[in-house]
């Protein structure tokens, strides 16, 4: 009688961090989509810039300055906040990996706080841009850049809240530890993209 | 085998149709009447012939591949086909790809040289320069000249002298249009907020039809124009006439016609130089009677058509910007008298 080998996989884990988990891949490709979206949006920013002799366009009634440059205050504050917020996130990431429930709870709460603060600061940033979205093409594209990033901040914070609720109320299982690691990755991405946008929106008009 | 006949049918049909088409047509890209169109049609024929040969060869190869039939009983999959056979195939494929690359290179060179010939030598000659402005759905033609008295505006009919390069600067008043006179050259877009340029030159006298080639809304289909290429002296005479102000009305009927024109809707959109009518929303009618067509080359410029156009242009060209007018018969007739006098 013919026999065949059995590869018994019943011992395999259900979840594992990073490249093991399809969720990790899914998340990364969603980020890839958003990255190419921002790349094209930034390309648009520079494309439209070609149509202006001065960028941002000068405003007649402004007396003190020729060009209404976006004010640095809130944007810079937001940048600093976001960069700092990576620290609790890294710690949460580590904690989730080694299975430290308590620590990752604290980390997530801090992260959520940072997220909310960043959202508040962002809502002031629009005012820091002299133009409205319907004033001219410059206003439109800058508002769009800030808006798209704000959307990601919002989604990110909501995601953190959901994960937090879970690990506070339900079990701290492998599945959701993987989720935390994934959220952390998303967080780093949002911050990274923001550094780029910050440099472009606030500084390219100043230098060059 | 049926495939072979269909293929050959297509080739045959294609050749016939093209040979036929290449010897007629006032709006035909392979019936060139100028240097650009000429180099283009030569490029076209080169590509067409080479591509046809390639197509036939590939089809033959395909058919030869199909000729060998095997009994359906023999279905054992071949995972290790004879090595020498595979090697022969590989060489064939590689050489086929090489040939493809070579052909593409030839095309690339040919296309560059054609492109060069279209712009280069005309760019530095100085000839006539015309500003073409696209409106929904008609063409405003401004003849530029160093001598201000020679600057004049007309619509939908461009006269050019034979053998003289003409520079068009293309603008759009509303949406994107595209200026295309196949017998003379390729097309260029008229884009709001941008200025595009194209050179034309007609070598044979004749009438060539052009048409908007970028979808521009309701009446994209009926936004055409005529290019009339004529000998220099004829052109000069025409230009001489166009620079004049409009013919004064002679008969009473014409006088009344002018009154009707000036005191009804017409005056709101149309200009007739030498009269109070100076609006440039619609075509300039100073010399409307001298044109061959009306309604952006939609109808021949006869009295009946003119009447129909004035009364109810919407039935001819639904959606165009000319409203309907219900003048009573007398007014209409005198208006027609007046307009037909605007030579």
């Amino acid at each position, binding site marked *: 009688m013919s026999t065949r080998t059995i590869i018994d*996989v019943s011992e395999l884990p259900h979840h594992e961090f990073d490249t093991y988990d399809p969720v990790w891949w899914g998340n990364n490709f969603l980020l890839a989509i958003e990255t190419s979206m921002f790349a094209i949006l930034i390309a648009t920013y520079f494309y439209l810039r070609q149509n202006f002799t001065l960028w941002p366009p000068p405003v007649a009634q402004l007396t003190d300055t020729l060009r209404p440059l976006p004010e640095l205050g809130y944007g810079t504050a937001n940048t600093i906040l976001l960069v700092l917020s990576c620290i609790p996130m890294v710690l949460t990431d580590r904690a989730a990996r080694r299975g430290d429930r308590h620590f990752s709870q604290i980390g997530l709460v801090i992260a959520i706080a940072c997220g909310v603060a960043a959202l508040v600061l962002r809502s002031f940033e629009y005012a820091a841009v002299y133009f409205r979205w*319907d004033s001219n093409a410059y206003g439109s594209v800058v508002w769009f850049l800030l808006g798209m990033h704000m959307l990601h901040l919002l989604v990110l914070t909501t995601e953190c809240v959901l994960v937090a609720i879970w690990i506070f109320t339900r079990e701290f299982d492998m599945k959701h530890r993987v989720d935390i690691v994934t959220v952390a990755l998303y967080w780093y991405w949002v911050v990274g993209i923001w550094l780029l946008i910050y440099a472009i929106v606030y500084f390219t008009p100043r230098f060059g | 085998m049926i495939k072979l006949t269909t293929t050959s049918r297509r080739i045959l049909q294609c050749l016939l149709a093209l040979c036929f088409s290449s010897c007629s047509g006032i709006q035909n890209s392979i019936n060139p009447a100028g240097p650009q169109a000429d180099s283009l049609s030569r490029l076209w024929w080169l590509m067409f012939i080479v591509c046809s040969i390639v197509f036939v060869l590939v089809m033959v190869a395909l058919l030869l591949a199909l000729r060998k039939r095997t009994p359906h009983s023999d279905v054992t999959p071949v995972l290790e086909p004879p090595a020498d056979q595979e090697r022969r195939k590989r060489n064939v494929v590689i050489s086929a790809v090489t040939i*493809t690359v070579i052909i593409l290179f030839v095309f690339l060179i040919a296309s560059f040289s054609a492109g060069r010939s279209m712009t280069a030598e005309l760019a530095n000659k100085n000839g006539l320069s015309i500003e073409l402005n696209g409106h929904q759905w008609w063409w405003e033609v401004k003849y530029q000249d160093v001598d201000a008295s020679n600057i004049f505006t007309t619509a939908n009919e461009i006269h050019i002298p034979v053998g003289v390069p003409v520079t068009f600067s293309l603008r759009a008043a509303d949406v994107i249009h595209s200026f295309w006179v196949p017998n003379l050259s390729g097309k260029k877009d008229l*884009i709001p907020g941008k200025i595009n340029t194209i050179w034309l030159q007609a070598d044979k006298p004749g009438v060539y039809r052009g048409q908007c080639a970028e979808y521009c809304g309701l009446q994209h289909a009926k936004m055409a124009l005529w290019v009339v290429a004529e000998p220099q002296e004829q052109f000069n005479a025409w230009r001489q006439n166009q620079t004049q102000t409009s013919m004064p009305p002679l008969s009473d009927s014409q006088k009344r016609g002018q009154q009707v024109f000036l005191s009804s809707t017409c005056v709101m959109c149309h200009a007739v130089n030498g009269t109070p009518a100076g609006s440039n929303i619609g075509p300039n009618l100073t010399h409307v009677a001298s044109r061959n067509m009306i309604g952006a080359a939609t109808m021949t410029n006869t009295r009946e058509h003119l009447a129909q156009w004035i009364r109810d242009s919407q039935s001819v060209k639904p959606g165009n910007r000319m409203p309907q007018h219900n003048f009573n018969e007398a007014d209409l007739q005198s208006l027609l008298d007046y307009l037909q006098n605007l030579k």
Partner: protein
Amino acid sequence: MSDERAKQPPEISTSTISDEELAEVMEREKGELERTWARPRGLHGWLIDTDHKAIALRYIVTAFVFFVLGGIEAALMRIQLARPENHFLSPDKYNQIFTVHGTTMMFLFAVPIMTAFGIYFLPLMIGARDVAFPRLNLYGYYVYLIGGILLYAGFLLNTGPDAGWFAYVPLSGPAYSPGKRVDIWAQMITFTEISALVGAVIVIGTTFKMRAPGMTLNRLPLFVWAQLVTAFMVIFAMPAVMLASSFLASDRLIDTHFFNPAEGGDAILYQHLFWFFGHPEVYIIFIPALGFISPIIITFTRRKIFGHLALVLSLISTGFIGFGLWVHHMFATPIPQMGQSFFTGASMMIAIPSGVQIFCWIATLWGGKLNFKTPLLFVLGFFAIFILGGLTGVMLASVPLDLQIHDTFFVVAHLHYVLIGGSVFPLFGAFYYWFPKWTGRMLSEWAGRLNFWLMFIGFNLVFFPMHQLGLHGMPRRVYTYLPETGWGMLNLIASIGAFILAAGVLVFIVNAVWALRVGAVAGDDPWAAESLEWAVSSPPPHYNFHNIPVVHGRYPLWQAPEDAPVVRGLSTTKRETLVTSVLDAQPELRFEIPGPSIWPLMVALATGVTFIVGIFTPWAFLVGAILAGGALTAWFFGDPNYENRPGHDTEEKSETVVPPGELQPKEV
């Protein structure tokens, strides 16, 4: 992948088992497995079903319905153009019809149906039990459906978009397209984009992580390669059009100035954004079709494909070059000479990979044991038509020649030769090839031949004359033409051909309906084909594979040894599938796949409300965000398998209810 190497490969024990025992155990497990994977009862169950096969078939049917609708619109246009100065359609209606025709065929038919084939066959071809993210998959389908319904609801209510399928500004902009017509177009784009992107992520995730042991990248079927390349193209191309349509919508609805030259905007910007997507789009439609051709040729020549590696490489390079030639749609705009030359070069270069594939396929056909079944017939039709379309494509790549034939009927002919020849013919071949797998019944062979010849002859009658029409100076998108242009005869021929083509499609529909009722029973593998989907029953069981197979070569069924090892130990009470490593497909996880859920539908509805009501008031975005947020929360907190716990009633009732304890394969 680096830290994957770093980690210890997980523990995998191996043992042996006799075929009889194996069969016995499987018999015992069957009922349990059936119940775990079965679709919940009733309409509710149908709405929440996440089985990739069910979803894919819905995609295919929906897309085919849109194909027929688009075809009807095409027929109406051909009637209008049959003779000069025809008054069958008003210009207003005609413009709506050709816009909706283009939009339907591109966004509602071609892209979704190609994705659908991937969703159906990827798991079956790579030996997985479902796709990576089944609920996301369901969501993608519903969003697509909403988009399609939106477009046609608008069309029927005289609100059909009328600015052409690429809606150039300023014509489509706020000043020249009053009303809501173009807004509906823009939002429809958003919907189809979302579903396409979701589909791409699913395809990549599934292909990377869910391949059966032994199916290394090197052994990946060409069908899967094609889907993979397409998915990557979608990821990088679609965001461009998503931005283009959102810019357009915001210009129209909230007065932004992206495309308003007077305020620093730019009409050309839109064209760049659109074609940066629009050209890859052509390949997004065409490359999956190439993936259909290879398996069909392999099966009906009974031999391994010639130049597997060359084919894979040319697929990939097509994917790359496809992004380098969008400007050849804009040669008539003021573009610097340098740029034009570059894009000419790129546009011609793309002919090389296509050539390589054609040659490899012909080399495979050469001396193969040919079996002229309908699928192969359609593939041969593909050769004839697509090659012609490809050659005219080379002509269009040349800047000067393009200036003559751009935006004329020559282009219409070219794009239909490439898309119908390149996609629809292989697609119909694929219908005939895989219909038995979907339904368990064969389509009629002679009806298939009739179908093919009607379509082939009809197609050439419609579109071949259009080449001449273009050269004779007939621009595209004209609702009528004057008699003196002399375009009447060729247009009449085209219109006649249109109805022959339509007859061909009709034959297919009749054939399909007939086969569903009384078609010959197919069995598991009617074509004696090589890829894994033919190893399972037709139609496949909900769980696809009882034991995940182990792959031994590029042609799994042709190369399977007698005593091929089998993978055991996946739970029969939970929806589990095997997750393997990206490169060499080593088993890594027992991944628990989420089961049916109502929330994807709810989130899709929330998305729908957001964007459709958003046409009328910006508040919709706030409301929609809240709705979607709520639904997503429920999605997140819902038990991934709440429908599949043992005892939960499903349509399957199995007699052999054995306590789960005995079912653990360890005890075997």
